């Protein structure tokens, strides 16, 4: 009774100018970067693990096979490396922050949900770029791989954008599992999926059945793009881009739905 009238009076200064809204996105991204740069223990293993893998299997063990093997594996291990900041950087941090109550607190505050997600996304993209840079350094300096500047740029771009579908997948898993259970679950997705997409051994070396179902995995499609970037593959790229895009959209949608409903 007394309420309806008072609301109009109260609804006054709650609007935010577009500039201030943009400011939230910047502040959120800045905080996200700061906190992980100050705690390198979380991101560093995620970035170094693929580089170590490439050094062992792509550079040292593939020496006898020549530069083409190192070039081929640069693409595959690059994809393997890019998946990790997406799945773990995004998924595990989300699972931990849901567990610790930080996400609940942020949802109660007037934070645009997109700002929170974008901050994490930029973090993952930066980490993916570092991974590719590390692998490029190993390939060019130790693996005797030669790449044109265009190819270097294409591979970096593939890595920086290719992390996004895995961010979406990591985010979805992060909304399903709280806290310490998430890393284990993500390993169960990460390692088999990498193997079955031909990231560790080229697909033709795998059993026929695995070759046939490989297009199911997003990492397979990203590998096709990465191979094209380093000049190891011809043919249309658009179908792979579209599959990755669709994959990212579906998991992003599922994850945001779960976040909105359950937090």
């Amino acid at each position, binding site marked *: 009774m007394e*309420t309806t009238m008072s609301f109009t009076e109260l609804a006054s200064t709650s609007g935010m100018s577009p500039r201030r809204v943009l400011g939230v996105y910047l*502040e959120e991204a800045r905080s996200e970067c700061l906190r992980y740069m100050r705690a390198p223990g979380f991101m560093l293993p995620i970035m170094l693990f693929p580089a170590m893998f490439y050094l062992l299997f792509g550079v040292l063990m593939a020496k006898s096979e020549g530069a083409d093997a190192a070039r081929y594996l640069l693409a595959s291990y690059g994809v393997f490396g890019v998946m990790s900041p997406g799945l773990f950087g995004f998924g595990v941090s989300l699972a931990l922050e849901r567990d*610790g109550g930080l996400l609940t607190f942020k949802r*109660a505050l*007037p934070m645009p949900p997109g700002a929170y997600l974008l901050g994490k996304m930029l973090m993952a993209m930066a980490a993916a770029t570092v991974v590719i840079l590390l692998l490029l350094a190993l390939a060019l300096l130790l693996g005797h791989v030669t790449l044109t500047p265009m190819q270097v740029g294409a591979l970096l771009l593939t890595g920086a954008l290719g992390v996004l579908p895995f961010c979406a997948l990591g985010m979805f898993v992060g909304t399903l599992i709280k806290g310490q259970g998430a890393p284990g679950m993500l390993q169960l997705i990460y390692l088999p999926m990498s193997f079955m997409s031909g990231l560790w051994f080229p697909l033709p070396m795998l059993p026929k059945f695995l070759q046939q179902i490989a297009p199911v995995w997003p990492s397979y499609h990203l590998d096709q793009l990465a191979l094209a970037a380093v000049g190891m593959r011809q043919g249309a790229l658009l179908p792979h881009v579209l599959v990755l895009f669709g994959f990212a959209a579906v998991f992003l949608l599922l994850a945001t739905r779960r976040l909105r409903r359950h937090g």
Partner: protein
Amino acid sequence: MAHSTPTVARLDHVVKRYGRLTALDGADLVVRRGELLALLGPNGAGKTTAIGLLLGLIRADAGKVELFGQDPQQIDARRRIGVMLQDAELPPTLRVGELLRLTASYYPTPRALAETAELAGIGDLLKRSYAKLSGGQQRRVQFALALCGRPELLFLDEPTVGMDIEARGKLWAAIRQLLAEGCSVLLTTHYLEEAEALADRVCVMAHGRMIHEGTVEALRARVALKRIRCLSALTVDTIRSWPEVSDVWQDGERLHITTADAEIVVRRLLDADTQLCELEVQRAGLAEAFTEVTRDADEASNIDQREAA
């Protein structure tokens, strides 16, 4: 006067179920502008669910939830609130000043950093990492985050847990200052003396419903019993034999008498012992009232269940 004051937050016949458990069973709540409403109740009474609904964290199964006349899930409504939750692990490596800057960026017209720090008494902590603070200091920082956006309504969930007496006193003073500026506060607390010290009104919950709502005085008046204390030569047994006395015990020299008819008992005491001194008569405190009100609700709920069975 209270009725002409605008409402800032409201639950109207709200039902919320988690599977077979009914957390809120037709809950009603009104927070008016400029008042501090203390939400009290034993664990499991539904306080957290009520707060979660008003913050837009969860959705009601039935009934209406309003924050400034809007759905709390609307970000515009939440731009007018400040929040201090019981357990939120803030990013440990960020400095206090950075946390404040980030949180203030969410609001249209936040306070200046120095003003927030001054109000919450954390001016000396701004450069420190959040993880390096003591539990009480972290609580103060969380309080600063709650008020940095110049909110019109502040949600404080057990704000003084883990604080020493001095810090608690400072926080109470800051809350009073915010109230004086016209800010409303919804406070949940287990410390009844905190509600007694700060609240304009209290709302007691049990079994997912509001079982009492009114001023602190009104809640205390629900309990008819009064306490009489005095120094007297009369023995406990003599006083116990008086029909109006419901309980009596002795603590050193001092007699403690509980009765519903304080006037009659005092008259008899003074007649029986002319040397009697240090006479005190007091209405039972909020703690006793709270215990009695929730016990009544427990009994009512048990009867309901028996009838249903």
